[in-house]
């Protein structure tokens, strides 16, 4: 009896260490762990961080700003002229309202160091600033300085789209956006109003100024992919290597219709 058992045991042992091709499960342990670690951003102290600066320019003749027709609440909205802000180029060809960000970074400086716009105002029936930059999960204050009905209607894919009324008497409200995304904002009461909210999942984001300049500081030394996003011309990317304590320039140029 004992012998029979030991024979079977031997057979099992043979099978266990025997060859035989292994079925392909399609996924290996390593990829799993890689996916695990690409989780949420963690803030830490950045010693001797570098700085990325640059200017985003437009390749071609400076396009004229298109004037928008004000058709409603004219006594409030029509005080100043409104222009289509989907492509704003300075006389030096600098492009305003380009969102520049490091595409992927797991650890780095805290959000308090990001030059975020904690509020967006609806003033003269326009969103000011045109692009608001807000950390994911943080409160964005939305003001209504006009005293007429506005609504914040967001068009997003990752975050839940919202459409909230802000009547004239409600001067201030807040919204939070949980996930990083470029979110278009419109007002259905005044159909010419348009803007964007850039929701950032790490603080290495910047919006170019009127002359196309930007600066991202406190970057841990390393090589990164920078992404430049412009609402009507799309995105561009560039590799940039940041040395500890040093400043590096990363310019970009958009061509019409690119």
């Amino acid at each position, binding site marked *: 009896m004992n012998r029979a058992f030991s*024979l079977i045991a031997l057979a099992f042992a043979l099978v266990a260490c025997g060859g035989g091709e292994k079925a392909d499960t399609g996924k290996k342990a390593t990829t799993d*762990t890689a996916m695990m670690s690409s989780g949420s951003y963690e803030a830490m102290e950045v010693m001797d961080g570098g700085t990325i600066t640059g200017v985003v320019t437009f390749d071609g003749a400076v396009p004229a700003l298109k004037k928008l027709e004000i058709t*409603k609440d004219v006594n409030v909205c029509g005080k100043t002229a409104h222009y289509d802000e989907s492509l704003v180029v300075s006389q030096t060809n600098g492009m305003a309202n380009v969102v520049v960000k490091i595409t992927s970074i797991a650890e780095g400086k805290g959000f308090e160091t990001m030059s975020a716009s904690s509020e967006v105002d609806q003033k003269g029936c326009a969103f000011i600033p045109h692009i608001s930059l807000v950390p994911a999960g943080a409160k964005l204050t939305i003001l209504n300085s006009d005293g007429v009905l506005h609504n914040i209607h967001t068009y997003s894919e990752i975050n839940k789209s919202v459409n909230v009324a802000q009547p004239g008497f409600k001067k201030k409200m807040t919204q939070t956006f949980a996930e990083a995304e470029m979110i278009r904002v419109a007002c259905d009461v005044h*159909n010419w109003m348009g803007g964007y909210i850039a929701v950032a999942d790490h603080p290495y984001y910047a919006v170019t100024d009127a002359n196309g300049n930007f600066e991202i500081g406190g970057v841990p030394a390393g090589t990164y992919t920078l992404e430049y996003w412009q609402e009507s011309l799309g995105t561009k990317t560039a590799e940039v290597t940041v040395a500890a304590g040093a400043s590096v320039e990363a310019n970009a140029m958009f061509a019409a219709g690119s």
Partner: protein
Amino acid sequence: MPKRSETPLEERRYGHFFLLLAGLLALSTFWAIWDMLRERAPWQRYQMEINSLEYANTEAELTAEQEKFERRYAAKLETLQQQLTEAESKLIGEDYQSITAEVQQVDLKIEKAMQVYRFAKSEYDALWYEYKHAEHTGHTDEMESLRPKIDNLQTEITALKQAWDDAEAEKDAIEEREAGFRQEITQLQEQIAKLNKPMDELETKLGNISDRKIKIEQFVMAGFVKGNFQSYLDQVDRCTSCHVNEDKGGFDEYNIPFKTHPNREVLIKNHPINQFGCSPCHEGQGEAIMLPHAHGFVSHWPKPLLNETMVEAGCNKCHSSELKVEAAPNLTRSKRMMYDLACYACHEVAGYEKMRKIGPELNSITKKTTNEFIYRWVKDTKSFRQHTRMPNPQFTDQEALAVTAYLNFINKESDYSVPRAPYGGSVTRGENYVESLGCKGCHVVTDKDREVRVTDVTYDMAPELTKIGSKVNRDWLYAWIRNPKQYNPNTSMPKLRLTDNEALDIVAYLTTQKEGNPPAANLAGADLDSEELIDEGKTVIRNFGCHGCHEIKGMEKEGKVSVALDEFGGKTHDELFFGDAIANESVPDDSWEAWTIGKMKNSRLYATEAVVQRMPNFEFSDEDALSMTMLLRSWDGRKIGKNFVKKIGTRGESLEKGRRLVRQYNCVGCHIIEDEGGYIRPTVIEAFKAKGKTEDAALSASPPDLIGEGRKVQPDWLFDFLKNPTTNIRPWLDIRMPNFDFNDEEVNTLIAYFQALEDINRPFSEININLTRAEKRAAEKLYSADYLSCFSCHQVGNKKPEGPPEGWAPDFMLAPDRLNPDWVSDWIADPQAMQPGTKMPAFYPDIAEALPDILEGDADKQVEALRDYLMNIRKFANNL
């Protein structure tokens, strides 16, 4: 050595034979075990493999977690532990030590108090029994003597209970003191546990994986399918022995058999594996646990595993009564094709018995077009309209001539006559009307429309009009677009309530839409009135079954010309006639699939000189042919047990009838219904872009999304609207809701359908909503410009909002008759939840807090006031 035969029997030795045989036996035993484990039990290997992989993955996660921990929290843990040690050392102080002694003392005290109390209680109970006994036996004197004793004991017990409670309270106080001492320690321990939590969880998971048993999994589906002897047979599946993770989330990225079932949330949730198994949907040989046996790719197994393109055929076994099958998009599409293309016109199809004829009637066709066109059309429809729903009869010249002659003959008896259309009409204005009134919801009018239009099917639901001027005559067209039913009472083409001038302009435009190089079709030499030819035409029509789709005089008594399809999917390849197709390699092999796909792509593929094939040619694309093949596969004639077949119920029937009607009238050409349709939108966007307007403006100018319609509108209103549509809900739309001349049954079907979509059943009834004075005062404020500013976008009768019309919102004056009050309140409370993406913003609940003076700042009350005011708004319209 003596010869073996010379050795006496009893002295012969058999040792070496036995050794050899024993060796063989041992080897074959080894081989048997080896074969069983390696070849016959792949499931063991798979289970072991996924377990070890999961183990490795979890271990790797654990290592990563530990590394992260080292990097981020190691220092913190050390500090915490140090603090813990300090806190613990503090406890050694005298205060804490004395607590232990106190607890012991108080425990003793509690014990004593409890005992004394319980003794007293038993004594009391005994006395009470005696007292009651005396009462029942009528010994009043004994009762009287017992009464004071009982009362005394009662007092005593209350006191003793109090003493016990006091002791307990004392203990609680001591323990609270102790907890106070330990509080810091507890907190620190909690913090440490929290830091360790992710790692602890992973370690538990590792333990669970190691404990798994390797075994065969098996499910029995009792009475699944009817056998050859009238009884329903069980089916057994062991598939999950290898397919280990089908019902486990998180394995979507893995390869088969380790992968999670696609769309598990819907498919497995609605069909739990322990009830439905796998083979009822997927086919294959469920009992087998070896490849390829399990997948059924072995001889004499009639139902091998359905591959990726055929798998949804499995759904139709139990869902055959539904036109739309959730989570089976390909099946749904193929069923729609079957319905739209009217396979039931020539074949018996279960569930589609009494159907209308889908083609136009042909008894007055010569008033519409010429004999030359008819001749050319029946020879080759696709050369004139590539996307027509009509399959190509591909008649020979002689057949075409005969059919033309017969149609010409019966048309002479038609009493339909077309008056002459007036002269004039502007091509430009006509083009504009065609673009803006909504014709493009169903018709492709320009090549650009063809380019931008995307629908759920590859054929047109209504005729393409790019060459319409080469087909129909002007007088007929003018009469037709003004009132289509006059020519063809069964048409789906609605009336657009065109004025004579609008109609004339549209006719002017459409008659310019001509074919570039029409093929020569001269019937001058033919004698269409020849009786012989007319008789021949009648025979051709009867044989080919044109009357399946068209009303044709003389064919009233004819039936379906082809075979029933309900068992076609169960045919074997030797029952199918391949003609010369295999010999000349027109089909890849002699399988059922190859035959059917070939037939769908070219219905005359298997015709030979001896065997005539008459099925008109749908000329399906590869994708469409595959869809139809899948549907045919599902009709295999097997009877499925009643516990498995989907019971659609009353609601399902309402949905089914409604869905058929929605397709018949192509409502989805304009409207989005059940998240599908709105096929006109790309053409509206194109037209707006051409005028320099935005896409948003185009979407505002498009027909409305009918999401939640059944809950939104009152059935009375919907009945009237469908019978007699108006354009005053959204006056800014140029697109007109046309008049379909629905009969009462159709309207009621649509109302029941929209309600069934919302899972409600509302009667036709008048709605009266009471508006209190307080509500009226509140609502007047809320509606005004200083508050919610509703009139900023909403029209009220003649009072129109500022700005361009595409920014306006529906007229409040229509609400009392049109909207359901409960829908109105839900809508005001959260419009995005009712119709995602709507322009109507959410005011509530946030606004209510900001308005504490109005109805106490209560959101529900404010919404109700807004609703009640709206439902009564006609009374106040003049004051607004």
